[in-house]
């Protein structure tokens, strides 16, 4: 426990879970930005609009992340509310070694882990480091010929920007459903990396997994979403 800004715990309800910073290393790639620091100054000065902006921006994202740790929406909401209290309690000691967003995610993950342990019905963190399953191939193997070349190659998608894809019918719902169906650890990695843009090194720190496992899970998760999107865009 070297980083005082890792754990915001103060008060019994927010006691540090004791996990989460065991592997913390100093990181410069993800340090708090000037905007983060300005926002923290406003929060510490009691600026309500600043806090409203913060929760409006992040609440839904935090619930989405929490959903990969706990089984139901109501518990996810509770974990996120506990996270906001943790953020307020810890703000005075935030040192800005990571981005504010990453720091908030770390608090959430620690809260969610504690909750998971207490309820013993969510992801088992003892096995967090093991990649899940034997690993489905990235692409259905029947799409390749005997020499590993494409037999059924990718067809041209009509859309070539993310905005256009998201505007297309049910693309967003299909992706959300595919995320929902991911095994929990793949889902955590995908949400942190590709939805929230947390750097790989920070994701490994937050989830306490090895870099290689992080990449394996990211590969499987991205492949699953790629397959889901392709299926949808080609049936359209």
């Amino acid at each position, binding site marked *: 426990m070297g980083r005082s800004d890792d754990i915001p715990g103060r008060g019994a309800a927010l006691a540090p879970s004791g996990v989460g910073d065991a592997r913390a290393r100093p990181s410069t790639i993800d340090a708090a930005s000037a905007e983060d620091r300005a926002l923290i100054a406003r*929060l*510490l000065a*009691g600026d*309500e609009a600043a*806090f*409203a902006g913060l*929760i*409006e921006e992040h*609440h*839904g*994202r935090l*619930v*989405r992340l929490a959903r990969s740790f706990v089984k139901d929406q109501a518990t996810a*909401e509770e974990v996120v*509310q506990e996270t*906001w*209290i943790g953020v*307020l309690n810890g*703000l*005075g000691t935030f040192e800005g070694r990571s981005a504010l967003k990453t720091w908030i995610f770390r608090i959430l993950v620690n809260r969610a882990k504690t909750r998971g342990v207490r309820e013993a019905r969510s992801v088992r963190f003892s096995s967090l480091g093991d990649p899940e399953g034997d690993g489905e*191939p*990235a*692409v259905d*193997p029947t799409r*390749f010929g005997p*020499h*590993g*070349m*494409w037999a059924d*190659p*990718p*067809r*041209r*998608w009509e*859309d*070539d*920007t*993310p*905005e256009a*894809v*998201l505007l297309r019918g049910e*693309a*967003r719902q299909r*992706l*959300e459903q595919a*995320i929902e169906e991911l095994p929990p650890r793949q889902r955590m990695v*995908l949400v942190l990396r*590709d*939805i929230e*843009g947390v750097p*790989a090194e920070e994701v490994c720190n937050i989830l306490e997994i090895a870099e290689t496992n992080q*990449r394996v899970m*990211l*590969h499987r998760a*991205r*492949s699953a*979403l*790629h397959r889901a*999107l*392709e299926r949808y865009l080609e049936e359209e």
Partner: protein
Amino acid sequence: MLTCKELTELVTDCLEGHLSLWDRVRFHLHIGMCRDCRAFLRDRRLTIQTIGKMPADPIPPDVRDELLERFRNWKPD
């Protein structure tokens, strides 16, 4: 020579900057010659960008009010 099938399994390592020099050379040689894999790589990138743009649900108004109330009573130390 890298096969298309192998390339689809190396794509994340490539995008993450984790290929060895030799694999990177093989990857790029293959991409340079194979239109189908270029399409695969383009679609993979678009998938990742699209995931990054998915909006989250807004905060429920009652939760927002409750948190703001808490903020008003909060004293940083």
